[in-house]
């Protein structure tokens, strides 16, 4: 049997069998498994309708699903979202590009920097701003820290939904180490507004390198510990294996992306496929699993966390010198420390804060891989400092929509496991 220590070894799968020797299930097999796991029902049975959420603890926010139940089996589900709608897109039309960055923080508040990053990438594409190498590396580092904190939170809450309280507190304790790094780096734990057009807000502080290395040395050990608790746990296996099968075709049809898609055997990761920031310069593997069930989504996220630690270490090792914010007076803010000492920086700051960046007419769409899936940002500009239309294509919006396709024919108790496994955050979903 594989021990917890060698399970993250990419060359060998369960039982030490090399990966290329394991036959992966074909889509037909997966569909057959899915059909076998679902219970056929007489439609004429008397149905009970149950409103699950918006205050149900397993709904990870204010998601509501109207379920039609026959006994414990879900006959149909109807998702209702919008309880957290704040009109971000409307607000964006009335703010300059710099002022939009704090708004994007509030989209997916679990991984704020990833949202900043997506918006900045799109805005830079529109403005033609080149991010300096150091800025790109710090972005990559912060984005991967985000992924770590997001996945640890996901792990804690989704396992809590399956009935363990202690594991949740363990995960939250370890997530705090990552949040401490964020606090050191940006000054805030959750909504950091750290991205800037043309780079990032601050350079790495003194001592960050040392502390960050301590955390990324420590976390893989904790991940092995998590796996010792969860991976061979009979209750978890019973509740996760062959539950909520969602094949790659289903994922495409419902625009389900990220770890759920990769758990269905598709090696799609925009960090590799449409690279941005410093991802082309670091080495990492795309985590792929093949059974498309709740258990494999767990495995994908566990491997992704290890890959994140690897990326962060490479970023720290190869961090280039130079500016971390583009010296582009037309589009980026001036360095804060120079504003009161340097007249050019002061003029730039005044101009950017009061007038905003002057952006050419046009439209762009940029899609990046955030911890929950693929996030696209569409910006249409008519010139000037404010966008004419911004659209955030956020992953949770579509993951929340796909819930009926995921749960119909499953048991109510399994819906909780399935809903947790696709990772929906309602700030991201309701915009």
């Amino acid at each position, binding site marked *: 049997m594989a021990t917890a220590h060698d399970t993250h070894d990419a060359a060998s799968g369960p039982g030490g069998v090399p990966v290329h020797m394991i036959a992966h299930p074909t889509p037909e097999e997966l569909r057959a498994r899915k059909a076998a796991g679902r219970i056929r029902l007489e439609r004429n049975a008397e149905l009970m309708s149950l409103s699950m959420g918006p205050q149900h603890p397993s709904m990870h926010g204010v998601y509501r699903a109207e379920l039609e139940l026959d006994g414990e089996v879900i006959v149909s589900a109807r998702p209702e*979202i*919008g309880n957290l*709608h704040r*009109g971000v*897109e*409307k*607000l964006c*039309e*009335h703010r300059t590009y710099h002022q939009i960055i704090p708004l994007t923080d509030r989209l997916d508040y679990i991984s704020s920097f990833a949202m900043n990053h997506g918006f900045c990438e799109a805005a830079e*594409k*529109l403005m*033609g701003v080149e991010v300096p190498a150091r800025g790109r590396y710090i972005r990559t580092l912060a984005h991967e820290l985000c992924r770590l904190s997001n996945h640890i939170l996901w792990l804690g809450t989704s396992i809590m939904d399956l009935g363990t309280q202690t594991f949740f507190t363990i995960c939250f304790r370890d997530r705090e180490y990552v949040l401490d790094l964020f606090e050191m780096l940006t000054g805030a734990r959750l909504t950091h507004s750290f991205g800037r057009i043309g780079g990032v807000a601050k350079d790495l502080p003194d001592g960050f390198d040392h502390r960050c290395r301590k955390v990324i040395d420590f976390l893989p050990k904790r991940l092995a510990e998590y796996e010792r608790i969860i991976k061979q746990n009979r209750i978890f296996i019973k509740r996760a294996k062959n539950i909520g099968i969602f094949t790659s*075709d289903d994922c*495409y*049809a*419902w*625009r389900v992306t990220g770890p759920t898609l990769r758990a269905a055997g*598709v090696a*799609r990761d925009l960090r590799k*496929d449409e690279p941005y920031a410093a991802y082309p310069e670091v080495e990492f593997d795309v985590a792929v699993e093949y059974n498309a069930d709740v258990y494999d989504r767990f495995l994908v996220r566990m491997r992704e966390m290890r890959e994140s630690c690897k990326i962060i270490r490479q970023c720290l090792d190869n961090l280039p010198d130079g500016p971390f914010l583009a010296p582009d007076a037309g589009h980026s803010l001036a360095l804060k420390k120079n504003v009161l000492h340097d007249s050019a920086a002061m003029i730039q700051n005044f101009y950017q804060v009061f007038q905003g960046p002057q952006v050419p007419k*046009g*439209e*762009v*769409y940029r*899609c990046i891989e955030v911890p929950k899936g*693929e996030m*696209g940002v*569409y910006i*249409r500009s008519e010139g000037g400092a404010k966008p*004419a*239309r911004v*659209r955030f*294509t956020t992953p949770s*919006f*579509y993951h*929340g*929509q*796909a819930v009926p*396709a995921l749960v119909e024919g499953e048991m109510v108790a399994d819906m909780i496991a399935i809903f947790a496994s696709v990772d929906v955050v309602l700030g991201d979903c*309701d*915009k």
Partner: protein
Amino acid sequence: MSDSLSPSLEKALARLNKRFGARLLEQTVLYGDVTCVVAPEDWMRVLSFCKSAPQLAFDQLDSLFGDHLPERPEAPFEVVTHLVSHKHGHRMRVKTSLAEGGSLPTVTGLWPSAGFDERETWEMFGIVFEGHPDLRRLLTTEDFEGFPLRKDFPLQGTIGGRIRTDLRGKV
């Protein structure tokens, strides 16, 4: 950021042009993104071709949303989609312009993920999607009045956003 296209996308565009020719009203490449503008009556035909033709094979609808351009009074609304092909790894944008009160056929039959997108576009801009299985308000409350993402809708104030107490208990 170059305007050179990938070979697969070149092939896809050639196929699309061969099939539709002059019915594609406009075709631009901006910031490396390909945009095709079609007439609303060709909307369904072009999108289903985009999905089914093997050279295009757009198997995922990345996003569908509306836009309002009041400076174009004859066709102030736009519906924009972004398509992704996992098979070829390319992307394309398809747009159409609509007059006030215009409608489009739904594409939920091609990509079920368009369901929420079309509901959002309807509630935010008032663009009707014919044949949509469940065209209700999505993000705002059921009794919300007005189309909030239109440019003439105010950012602040109570117009259209008031809570209707007379509907209490009925919705």
